């Protein structure tokens, strides 16, 4: 038995912290290879333009320059692949244009890479890059979806004349229309889910290195999934076989989705390092990140909710435009479809649902998954329209939700939009958050705010998410071009300590601690006897990586499956050692015991016997204690919860201050509550950021207006409150740990909670909706636009 203070359920302090706190983390840019060179990427200043010519002569002659490459050099090389094929409702496949490594012939967004300079120093590469003369002929650009879909709009890709990538639907339209025809009330809402820039604090970086002696390529990269990069870049772009390509994702400074994708710079440094015969490092400047990291969200939606006279939901429908940007990023098509449309039941027993999503090419940076990915968009629509309904019905928004929740006894629950929720208790999290947020004391606080000239508002929202992506056969039938299992290898060393190689990748989540707690508990050995290794394709058997809150549910389960195999083999060895029948061997508290006797042998002794097989059933059992498991989940997991936020609005300036935020979540069983709470805090920070601060703005010509922290508002410590968080548990029914995942919850539930609170505060002005972010300027404008009598 592991000591209670390090086992499953204990808030063990993180073992990765010492290196990070002492400056000894190893992030990609911290790595320097012998004889290394530096790359600087020349990027398009135009949103849409024809490249008439590129003259690299002067740059090639500049001091320190080793090579200059342009789109011409990559013409014969495949583009960046898209990992998900969505079909339109008419059955046609989505339009999937080439996504060149370096633009050739045409640029399609500001920041589109056009050329690369390799030089002895980064400064020399950048100096020389300015000497490249590129003749562009500007084309009319679509800075947003409205412009892209306007009649006569210039196509971003010739293959997509109307700039439509696909036109997808989900749900039963006829049943939904029928439900609406019976409705006592239909509530309608138009809303925008604002475009966000992920902004992991570590900018992306990549080092390519080629070993002529072995023919092996190594790529060090800031990735959430090194094996996926190896597969995509190796097989689909550069034609490098996996056994000659090693991808290492060392310490990675945050991802939030933006480091899932295979990016051009990875292919550039890998390919070019062979050409120049030296390692090449590229590290993004933050301003490059703004125009080259995949962005998130950017949906425009019309939604309608049908209710009966008692406030029961009868039907829901929505039509959404989803921005894909200038090219399809790795998982872009699945975000507004299978991670958004399928979540439109929310926590509610709405019987009929239909949604239509049109994906649109624009002259902007590609859009893909960002913390929550599709689920925040779905939750925002639902929780805003339910709030609007409550206001129209003059009903308590908590009561309206409670009346429509799926009841605990209804699980497993088949929604009208494909998912089967295995378990949950939404009433419990709502009750918990109302208590946690001191709902009873609200009116008093509102009066106090009023006395200070401030408008107080209170918002409630519930959320559900589908995590632990995903059963491979299900996602395969929906268009995924990959399996979504996870792999783990548990290597028991001769003296009984354990090295675990996991295909999950940690970039802040604390897997080295959490996974070790699982292993320590299951094997009954101290946690310091367990090492967790990840991030290197030459060490880890395989991996699909970390995103969609899947690490503990899928990666953790793969480890459990491998541990099961270790224990099963250990029982065989122990049976032989103790001269008992295998069926009589029990494993508990780190000991193999002959049932009903006091005969036992410790785990370490079994490990030693496996590697020093002197007394060992060699004729029936291989030596060694080293097992690998691949785990393919049976279903998604469904974390859910309810949040309450109180805000104060300064009616003179429009400033919104978050006064309090309470979150009650059900993540199933918790392995390390401290880490889980940290994940919730972080998600809330990003969710509140989306609601009040952050937005990525393009002007109508596709010029990026928020290209640095001077204009893109990152949440700072003084923008956010302290959070109150609580948990309840309904254990996931289909994985052995009973876990659901917790990484995205805060970012999903917070935006509607905050906006509902802001609308509540502004309700006396008759304001019924505000798009995010509710900046002071926007709030002030809403107040100005209100009826003068109400001002």
């Amino acid at each position, binding site marked *: 038995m592991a000591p209670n203070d390090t086992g499953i359920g204990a808030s063990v302090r993180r073992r990765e912290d010492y290196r990070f706190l002492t400056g000894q983390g190893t992030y990609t840019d911290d790595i320097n290879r012998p004889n290394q060179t530096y790359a600087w990427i020349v990027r398009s200043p135009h949103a849409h333009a024809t490249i008439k010519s590129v003259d690299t002569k002067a740059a090639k002659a500049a001091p320190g320059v080793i090579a200059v490459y342009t789109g011409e050099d990559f013409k014969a090389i495949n583009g960046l692949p898209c990992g998900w094929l969505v079909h339109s409702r008419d059955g046609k496949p989505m339009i999937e244009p080439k996504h060149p490594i370096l633009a050739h012939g045409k640029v399609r967004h500001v920041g589109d890479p056009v050329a690369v300079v390799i030089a002895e120093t980064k400064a020399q590469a950048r100096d020389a890059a300015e000497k490249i003369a590129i003749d562009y002929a500007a084309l009319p650009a679509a800075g947003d979806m409205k412009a892209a879909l306007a009649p006569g709009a210039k196509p971003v890709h010739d293959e997509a004349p109307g700039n439509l990538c696909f036109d997808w639907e989900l749900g039963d339209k006829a049943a939904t229309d029928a439900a609406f025809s019976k409705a006592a009330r239909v509530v309608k809402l138009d809303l925008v889910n604002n475009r966000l820039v992920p902004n992991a604090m570590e900018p992306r970086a990549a080092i390519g290195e080629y070993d002529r002696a072995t023919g092996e390529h190594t790529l060090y990269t800031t990735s959430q999934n090194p094996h996926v990069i190896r597969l995509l870049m190796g097989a689909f772009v550069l034609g490098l076989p996996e056994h000659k390509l090693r991808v290492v994702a060392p310490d990675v400074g945050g991802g939030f989705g933006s480091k899932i994708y295979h990016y051009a710079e990875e292919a550039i440094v890998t390919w070019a390092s062979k050409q120049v015969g030296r390692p090449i490092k590229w590290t993004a400047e933050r301003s490059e990140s703004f125009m080259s990291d995949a962005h998130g969200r950017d949906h425009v939606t019309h939604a309608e909710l049908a209710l009966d006279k008692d406030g029961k939901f009868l039907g829901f429908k929505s039509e959404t435009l989803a921005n894909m940007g200038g090219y399809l990023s790795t998982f872009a098509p699945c975000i507004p479809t299978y991670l958004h449309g399928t979540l439109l039941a929310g926590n509610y027993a709405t019987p009929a649902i239909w949604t239509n999503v049109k994906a649109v090419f624009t002259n902007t940076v590609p859009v893909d998954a960002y913390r929550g990915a599709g689920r925040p968009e779905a939750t925002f629509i639902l929780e805003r329209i339910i709030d609007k309904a409550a206001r129209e019905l003059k009903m308590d928004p908590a009561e309206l939700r409670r009346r429509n929740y799926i009841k605990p006894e209804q699980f497993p629950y088949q929604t009208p939009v494909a998912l089967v929720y295995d378990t949950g208790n939404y009433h419990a999290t709502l009750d918990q958050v109302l208590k946690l947020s001191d709902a009873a004391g609200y009116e008093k606080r509102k009066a106090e705010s009023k006395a200070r000239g401030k408008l107080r508002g209170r918002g409630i929202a519930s959320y559900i998410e589908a995590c632990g992506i995903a059963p491979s056969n299900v996602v395969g039938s929906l268009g995924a071009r990959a399996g979504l299992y996870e792999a783990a290898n548990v290597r028991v060393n001769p003296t009984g300590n354990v090295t675990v190689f996991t295909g999950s990748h940690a970039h802040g989540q604390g897997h080295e601690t959490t996974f070790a707690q699982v292993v320590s508990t299951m094997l009954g050995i101290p946690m310091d006897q367990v090492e967790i290794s990840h991030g290197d394709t030459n060490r880890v058997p395989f991996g699909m990586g970390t995103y969609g809150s899947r690490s503990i549910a899928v990666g953790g389960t793969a480890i459990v499956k491998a541990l099961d195999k270790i224990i099963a083999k250990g029982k065989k060895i122990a049976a032989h050692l103790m001269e008992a029948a295998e069926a009589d061997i029990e494993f508990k508290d780190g000991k193999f015991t002959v049932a009903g006797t006091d005969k036992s042998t410790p785990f370490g002794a079994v490990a030693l016997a496996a590697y020093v097989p002197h007394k060992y059933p060699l004729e029936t059992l291989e030596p060694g204690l080293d097992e690998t498991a691949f785990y393919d989940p049976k279903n998604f997991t469904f974390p859910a919860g309810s949040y309450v936020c109180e805000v104060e609005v300064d009616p003179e300036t429009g400033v919104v201050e978050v006064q309090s935020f309470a979150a009650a979540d059900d993540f199933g069983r918790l392995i390390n509550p401290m880490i889980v709470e940290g994940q919730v805090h972080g998600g809330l920070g990003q969710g509140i950021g989306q609601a009040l601060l952050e937005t990525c703005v393009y002007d109508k010509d596709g010029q990026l207006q928020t290209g640095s*922290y*001077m*204009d893109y508002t990152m949440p700072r410590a003084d923008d956010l409150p302290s959070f109150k968080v609580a948990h309840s548990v309904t254990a996931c029914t289909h994985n052995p740990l009973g876990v659901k995942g917790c990484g995205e919850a805060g970012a999903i539930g917070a935006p509607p909670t905050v906006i509902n609170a802001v609308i509540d505060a502004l309700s006396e002005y008759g304001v019924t909706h505000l798009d995010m972010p509710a*900046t*002071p300027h926007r709030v*002030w404008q809403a107040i100005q636009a209100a009826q003068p009598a109400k001002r």
Partner: protein
Amino acid sequence: MYEFAYHRPSSLADAAKLILEAGDNGKLMAGGQTLIPTMKQRLASPGTVVDLGALKDLAGIKVEGNAVAIGATTTHAAVAASKDVQAKIKALAELAEGIGDRQVRHLGTIGGSIANNDPAADYPAAVLGLGATITTNQRKIAADEFFKGLFETALKPGEIITAVGFPVPEKAAYMKFRNPASRYAIVGVFVAKTAGGVRVAVTGAGQGGVFRVPDMEKALAGNFSAKAIEGVKVAATSLNADIHASAEYRAHLIGVMARRAVTAAG
């Protein structure tokens, strides 16, 4: 950033000589908290940088009669922490405490801020709002004569700010409405009741940089209260507009910040 020639003179005379020699291609640097970011973005590309960091005599705070003299290379942190400034012109200490972040305040200087005359900087509002006098290696310049538009000042080639003298006001306060992203002033209003009358100076909002609001000054001269300026409107026509704030919003905020400054001044 592009490479440049770097000088760190040990006397004011040498500094003046070096910057004159560099001509249009030269830049003086004090804390570097604006110049270096600008150079990193390759928006400024001086061939010569003359660093005033070794001129220790230029840093320091002195109370001289009814005025506070602040040396040009005194950091924002030093001004904010100065017991003298806190005692004599609390509004100025508070303004300094609100510039940038702690790290910027440890290096950024009053002289650098004023010489740069960024339209969203805080110090120009205090200099103009208090009617300060700028001392250079050549002369004294009144605040009203110093600021000449965006990033433009009355400084001549080779002229280096050595100190800024602030008269001690009867009452003063500064209220800033920050850009949510950059934290620079969208609108900053410095209000002071001085021996020479009431002054109201606005930074962050004007297309031409910091400016005074005579209508507010007149109204406050008779009755130094927030109520007195409730009806005074600033026209939006000559104000900045960007994705964070329209000109109308800035005009509105000038009124709000001015009233709050008057109230805070007591």
